[in-house]
């Protein structure tokens, strides 16, 4: 069965303290890995799409990377406004399904 596992479940950092969130997947025929940010009570906000191992994408303090088994979301010098739940999702081969999501990492950045 296709699975997406995110770790850690929760992470508390001090402002400016860099770290990484992990998303490991066991799917066949990956056709894209997606990162989203979700604030409480709101819909997920699209961040990045990665398609092949070795690919990297950056946006402000965030950088996403992809290997054959996992993806990392690196957060550099985070600010309190980066506090949110970060979701990872995959689209499998054939593209006939919706996205399969992990349960997310709840990130808290303390001032």
């Amino acid at each position, binding site marked *: 069965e296709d699975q997406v596992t995110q770790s850690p479940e929760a992470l508390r950092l001090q402002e400016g303290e860099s770290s990484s969130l992990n998303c490991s997947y066991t799917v066949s025929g990956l056709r894209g890995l997606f990162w989203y940010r979700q604030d409480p*009570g709101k*819909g997920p906000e699209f961040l990045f799409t990665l398609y092949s191992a070795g690919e990297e994408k950056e946006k402000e303090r965030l950088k996403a990377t992809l290997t054959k088994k996992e993806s990392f979301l690196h957060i550099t010098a985070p600010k309190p406004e980066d506090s949110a739940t970060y979701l990872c999702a995959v689209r499998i081969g054939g593209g006939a399904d*919706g996205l399969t*999501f992990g349960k997310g990492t709840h990130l808290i950045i303390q001032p």
Partner: protein
Amino acid sequence: EAGVTQSPTHLIKTRGQQATLRCSPISGHTSVYWYQQALGLGLQFLLWYDEGEERNRGNFPPRFSGRQFPNYSSELNVNALELEDSALYLCASSLGGASYEQYFGPGTRLTVT
């Protein structure tokens, strides 16, 4: 550019009733996806509509159904509501087919009492 919109924001129903949720995609997007986000379970894929047709559905019973209209807006119907149907229902849209990013709306919070 307007994003994905959903209505109503909140919906309270009694067990056994029917609920109807609505979604308007981003202009130019032809695919609409529905997801359920129940507490502690993460987002679960419900349904995918593209060009007015149901293309695929997730592991949910038939009482979850919907449709897509000619203007690409969509409706999700949940019949014979059960307490465990209480969740945030999210709609997403994409440019179409299966290779594009999905953009989410704010969701409809359904509470079944």
